[in-house]
């Protein structure tokens, strides 16, 4: 089946949309570069991979379905504390801990989705903001369980697959995070190219029309939100396991806001938007905080305002526009 033939069939056209692009393969090969080029930065690389996973989860609901959330860190935090507590109370096996934490975050997400699916726009921003703050204060207050502002201490992780210990250099941590990111990405890629993914885009593009074509948007949103919450929980669990502690920061408003900024920087509603945004944000934070530790958000602000004004569809949106223009010449 040639995708370039003049009379492309509708099915071939839609099949071509889910085909792998060479740039995608290049991107994933590039994720291996830190092992070779920056062996001293593997811990940072691991945190970037975890943040990218978190951004990917937000992209599913915000970028694809148009469901704005200012409290997405709640699920990241639930995953992180779940993984932390499972390990603290005696089960240090990483993979099962990861799955359990994701499941718990998914269950919480499913419960919350019944509220989320009823609202839109500004109301939804306020609701998710409120729920996020609620989760933060709950974690803060439950000192006996979470360690409150002292953080959750006393985690002890067993080697991954019984073979790979978490080392000081972050070698295992990055490998582990990257593999999880890649596997989840494959799943998300599949999901977003599915009929369900198309329905999510339909919700984003026109919420009013969906019932008029017989769609149950709320059911779609509940499903998407549950999946996104589980992935966010997975990311939180990864952070807890690889750093062997959980701080309140993992469930804070700051984290919810940061992930939104990353997604907007990279380009929401694009498979790689959150991933690219996470890389840019985390590297920028690392560099800027080296220059001026107190004021590094100043530069993130500059970056955000510039990108939003110049490239409304994010950095990837801008690049793909340039690419399209170049190809049409």
């Amino acid at each position, binding site marked *: 089946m040639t995708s370039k033939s003049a009379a492309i069939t509708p099915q071939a*056209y839609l099949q071509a949309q889910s085909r792998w692009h060479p740039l995608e393969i290049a991107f994933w090969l590039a994720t291996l570069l830190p092992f070779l080029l920056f062996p001293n930065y593997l811990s940072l690389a691991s945190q970037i991979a975890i943040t990218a996973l978190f951004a990917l989860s937000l992209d599913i609901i915000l970028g694809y379905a148009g469901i704005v959330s200012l409290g997405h860190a709640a699920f990241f935090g639930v995953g992180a504390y779940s993984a932390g507590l499972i390990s603290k109370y005696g089960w240090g096996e990483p993979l099962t801990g990861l799955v359990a934490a994701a499941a718990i975050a998914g269950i919480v997400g499913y419960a919350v989705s019944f509220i989320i699916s009823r609202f839109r726009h500004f109301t939804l921003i306020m609701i998710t903001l409120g729920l996020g703050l609620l989760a933060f204060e709950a974690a803060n207050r439950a000192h006996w369980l979470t360690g409150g502002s002292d953080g959750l201490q006393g985690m002890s992780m067993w080697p991954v697959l019984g073979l790979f210990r978490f080392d000081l250099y972050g070698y295992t941590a990055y490998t582990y995070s990257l593999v999880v990111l890649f596997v989840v990405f494959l799943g998300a890629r599949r999901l977003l190219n599915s009929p369900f993914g*198309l*329905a999510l*885009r339909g919700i984003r593009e*026109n919420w009013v029309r969906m019932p008029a074509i017989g769609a149950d948007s709320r059911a779609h949103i509940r499903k998407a939100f549950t999946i996104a919450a589980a992935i966010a929980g997975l990311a939180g669990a990864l952070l807890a396991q690889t750093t062997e502690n959980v701080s309140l920061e993992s469930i804070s408003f700051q984290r919810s806001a940061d992930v939104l900024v990353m997604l907007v920087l990279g380009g929401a509603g694009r498979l790689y938007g959150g991933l690219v945004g996470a890389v840019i944000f985390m590297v920028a934070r690392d560099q800027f905080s080296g220059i001026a530790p107190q004021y590094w958000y100043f530069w993130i602000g500059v970056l955000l305002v510039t990108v939003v004004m110049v490239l409304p569809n994010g950095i990837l949106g801008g690049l793909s526009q340039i690419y399209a223009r170049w190809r049409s010449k």
Partner: protein
Amino acid sequence: MSVSADRPIALATRGLSKAFGSLPVARDIEIDLPVGARYALIGPNGAGKTTLINLMTGMVAPNAGQILLGGEEITALGPQERVRRGLARTFQINTLFPGLNALEAVTLAVAERRAVSGQFWSRVGSHGEVIDDAYEILRKLRLGDSCYQATRELPYGRQRLLEIALALATRPKVLLLDEPAAGVPQEESGDIFEAVASLSDDLTLLFIEHDMHVVFRFASHIIVLVGGAIFTEGSPAEIAADPGVREVYLGKRKHG
């Protein structure tokens, strides 16, 4: 007067009433749409024509009355359930998916009808039957050539056709068209109604339209709505000869 007394009723309303605050917008509406009907709903601006479609399709809840689809009461059902039972509509103001192309949009609607839209593990491209179904509808409405173009980039007339294509993708028994040619230059509006008229004979149609030439050409029966109530109804010839209609509607249009 009833041209189709022998035909079963596809859609009926019984004592349908609605008020927005103290303003009545639907007063005791009784309509019977026989299977295969081509009915026009006319009336001056603010007569409650669109509200009536909103009531029938469940987008607005009535204060009183019933709606029956194929003899079954659907008054309590949500809009999407009514669509699944075969009651579809189009919108006066384009209510499309701007960022999707026509093929994706209609494929989505077909996927909803065939209940595959919840599948998140199969690729859209692997659902050959859904896509063929969608493309066939687009081709019938002569949208086949432009189906890969983003909806927001389509010429306005084609967007109006896509409105109809999305409704047809739900495979309706009854289709309510809210000014299908609204905003389209008069010389093109005929094309849109040709496309509507060429739809299957089993499909029951009710359309709102202001252009009386179009109404007289395509409708087999006309319902005149004034101030939220049915003023009169009858064949095009009867309506054209009705002095009351001339006064409240036809005459008024000439001045307005």
